[in-house]
């Protein structure tokens, strides 16, 4: 099946405004007759819920955490991009568009990405109006910094806590609407299924994480802003609770899952220390503004560092290889994430890794501290340095940070058209939960931009068109589809609770993570992926025989919650491997060892793979069906990406 993304015709810069004019409107008096369900309260969900409620729709918002403010957007550190050109350094909407298309290795849609760049400027205005305390210069105007994959300074930030400040802004807008009675907020409530009637999404099934009650909720439309699926790798920078369940259940109800193998492995994370580790901590990409990445030039020096015989600051300048600056003189330490990660891995594979395990390279601030002074460095990155110190017990003001790549973001997600609608009418996906804007590699500081663009400035327009089309007739809560879906959810809960084997859910999750990291991580081969597929199938079969799930449904039961999420990851993992196997080219974060340039960069195959892979569920344990959306490049010329 060929997919229609519904990209408006016409010049790039006019597509969105033309489209907005052509969208149907719902008149103000009718808006209150519609109910909209929003699942997830991160940047995408909270901004959508607030904006739709402001317009007059009745919103029901759901999150599994104890408060909407806890959503994992809160942990985003570095910043948010916007094409304001406040720095007079040559930025423009077109440049942000171009950088994003190129950064994504030409695997995203021109129309979507241009719109993203276009509305980026409104996001900053909105956030400032809400009282978001962005960093400012002495003259009182907003400050910017640089991020990878771009040669202009367009990243707005609030120290190393930008995601926190933006989320609290969206949370405050949401709170205002809760106070006004336009949003009903359900916390500690997990979505476990989508209800469809005649092929349209009309509601969801949820489970209370306090008393286990399984309930149905009706809505004229269902919006998922439920984040990414990086936790399929077990260890990632995601929160422990981040999961794919809402998106995966939607997928099993017919929503296509696009480009699942596109995973972002972030170059600068604190390395793993042992088997007990439950998560990995990111050190913001903004650190590469002032930090220099290096590894020792020789294996002999690396060995001494690994043994602790010498310290990093004792390695002579001549014995250091600033490999990013050496290989990519124009972008230097600010190459995009996929490039930086692969190069760090190369150093380690070459025997030049550092730290106890050898799985690390250095990120060094000695030059910046010498140039700017310790206080200036602390003012920019203080909280990150403190966090590093807490975790590693090493002072990064004195010794360079040890860093290694870790799973951070997933570019893949539910397939959506230009309106953010999945192929199920009435079911929408926003933010990281969809696949839409980042292609095969996301640029730094663009996740926050996309989440808020979708929620504040896209969905309020596109949803109205759909609602106007279906009309305000109330959804029949007594339709048998609700009870049927609810019973299926209960059956599945009972099936999980009946598991009384010998291995904990966490142990299965860790095993899955090892398989994914080994075979579907930074370097992938047909042989390895084929092996991984078999391993995942075997692990999944074993899970449904030998897992232990303690406790009952009618109580707070994190073991049960975890079991449901890991069961879904065990299915998703196989689809990621299938997708990675199918895509024989390399592009962005998807690196097939079989497809590389002589310099070891990702080698695309535009003739055969310039498409979005949208997978269609086809029944339990059946191969999924591949649908292709051909990527049509009208404005940008496809070239081999170069950051040299």
């Amino acid at each position, binding site marked *: 099946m060929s997919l229609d993304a519904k990209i408006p015709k016409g010049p790039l810069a006019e597509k969105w405004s033309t489209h907005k004019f052509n969208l149907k409107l719902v008149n103000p008096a009718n808006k209150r007759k519609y109910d909209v369900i929003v699942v997830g309260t991160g940047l995408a969900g909270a901004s959508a819920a607030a904006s739709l409620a402001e317009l007059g729709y009745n919103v029901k918002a759901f999150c599994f955490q104890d408060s909407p403010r806890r959503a994992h957007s809160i942990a985003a550190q570095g910043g948010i991009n916007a094409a304001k050109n406040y720095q007079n350094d040559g930025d423009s909407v077109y440049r942000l568009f171009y950088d994003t298309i190129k950064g994504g290795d030409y695997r995203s849609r021109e129309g979507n990405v241009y719109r993203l760049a276009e509305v980026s400027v409104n996001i*900053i205005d909105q956030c400032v*109006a809400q009282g978001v305390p962005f960093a400012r210069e002495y003259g*009182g105007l907003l400050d910017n910094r640089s991020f990878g994959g771009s040669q202009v300074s367009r990243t707005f930030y609030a120290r190393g806590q930008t995601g*926190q400040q933006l989320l609290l802004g969206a949370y405050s807008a949401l709170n205002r609407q809760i106070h006004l009675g336009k949003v009903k907020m359900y916390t500690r409530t997990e979505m476990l299924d989508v209800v469809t009637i005649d092929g349209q999404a009309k509601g969801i099934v949820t489970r209370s994480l306090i008393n286990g009650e399984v309930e149905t909720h009706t809505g004229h439309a269902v919006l998922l802003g439920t984040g990414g699926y990086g936790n399929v790798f077990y260890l990632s920078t995601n929160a422990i609770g981040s999961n794919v369940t809402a998106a995966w259940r939607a997928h099993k109800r017919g929503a296509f899952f696009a480009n699942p193998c596109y995973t972002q492995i972030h170059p600068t994370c604190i390395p793993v220390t*042992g088997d007990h580790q439950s998560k990995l901590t*990111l050190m913001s990409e903004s650190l590469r503004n002032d930090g220099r990445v290096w590894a020792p030039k020789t294996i002999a020096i690396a060995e001494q560092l690994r043994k602790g015989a010498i310290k990093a600051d004792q390695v002579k300048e001549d014995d250091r290889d600033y490999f990013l600056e050496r290989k990519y003189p124009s972008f230097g330490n600010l190459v995009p994430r996929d490039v930086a990660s692969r190069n760090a891995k190369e150093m380690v594979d070459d025997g030049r890794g550092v730290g106890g395990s050898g799985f690390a390279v250095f990120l060094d601030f000695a030059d910046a501290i010498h140039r700017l002074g310790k206080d200036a460095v602390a003012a920019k990155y203080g909280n990150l340095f403190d966090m590093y110190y807490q975790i590693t017990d090493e002072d990064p003001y004195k010794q360079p940070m040890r860093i290694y790549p870790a799973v951070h973001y997933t570019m893949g997600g539910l397939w959506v058209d230009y309106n953010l609608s999945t192929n199920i009418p009435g079911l929408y996906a926003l933010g990281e939960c969809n696949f839409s804007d980042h292609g095969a590699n996301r640029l730094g500081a663009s996740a926050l931009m996309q989440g808020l663009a979708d929620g504040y400035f896209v969905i309020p327009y596109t949803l109205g068109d759909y609602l106007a089309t279906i009309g305000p007739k109330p959804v029949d809560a007594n339709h048998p589809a609700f009870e049927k879906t609810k019973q299926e959810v209960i059956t599945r809960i009972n099936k999980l609770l009946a598991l009384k084997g010998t291995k904990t859910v966490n142990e299965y999750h860790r095993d899955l993570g090892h398989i994914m990291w080994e075979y579907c991580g930074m370097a992938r081969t047909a042989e390895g992926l084929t092996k991984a597929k078999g391993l995942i199938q075997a692990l999944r079969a074993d899970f449904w025989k030998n897992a232990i799930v303690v406790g009952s449904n009618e*109580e707070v039961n994190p073991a049960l919650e975890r079991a449901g999420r890991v069961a879904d990851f065990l299915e998703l993992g196989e689809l990621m491997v299938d997708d990675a196997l199918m895509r024989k080219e390399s592009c962005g974060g998807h690196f097939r060892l079989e497809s590389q340039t002589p310099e070891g960069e990702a080698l695309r195959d535009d003739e055969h793979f310039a498409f979005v892979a949208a997978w269609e569920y086809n029944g339990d344990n059946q191969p999924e069906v591949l649908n292709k959306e051909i990527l049509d490049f009208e404005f940008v010329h496809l070239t081999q990406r170069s950051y040299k």
Partner: protein
Amino acid sequence: MSNGNMNLTLKVWRQKNAESKGAFVTYKAENISPDMSFLEMLDVVNEGLIHTGGEPIHFDHDCREGICGMCSLYINGHPHGPKNAITTCQLHMRTFHDGEIIVIEPWRAAAFPVIKDLAVDRSSFDRIQQAGGFVSVNTGGVPDANEIPIPKVIADEAFNSATCIGCGACVAACKNASAMLFVSAKVTQLGMLPQGQPERYSRVQAMVAQMDAEGFGNCTNTGACEAECPKEIKMTNISRMNNDYFSAKLFGQEELHEHASGE
């Protein structure tokens, strides 16, 4: 132990649900690496409990990098444990020594009822924010972000207040279970910025009224909140809030607040 790992004794508050009475239960945490975080140590204990047919200890947690505010735990008499300026998830076991007894309790406050074991219900915090912790602007139609310059010192101060993660350590630390530090952080952030001026006085009144309605205690200037706050929010926020609150009351600043009915 030769490998540097530790054996510890935990005294953990277990409570089935809000209605039941809780009690301390003793557990052994064995072969704990000093590189583990406190929550990873609890993960290890819980995995052991699941393997032996026990019920895992319930605690709130999510991001495990000190920013989401979900983790709590009153450890050896301190919210978020003995170290300053960090959350429980950032507390590492190297802070403790082999053979130590560690007492772990939930936040204790009437406005934070226990849900199960170490997890409490902090929805009262959300309700206070809903009462007024916002600037009443809709999406769209706002001025350019650089239209109103804000002195850097003001922006930085507002940011310092805005770093509150809403964990509730200030309430847990306070002998009166006062939420003044939490409430004042938002009042100060918005009260300092030009965008927050139009509702400055109505906001403080609405938020304080909700704080009182939730059953939080009063501030008696003990300073435990500031000492235990993982984000180092200062008590000067409370002074500022009191100042705004009394100005509002004394000079008859009206409560000009949007209401659902007057939409």
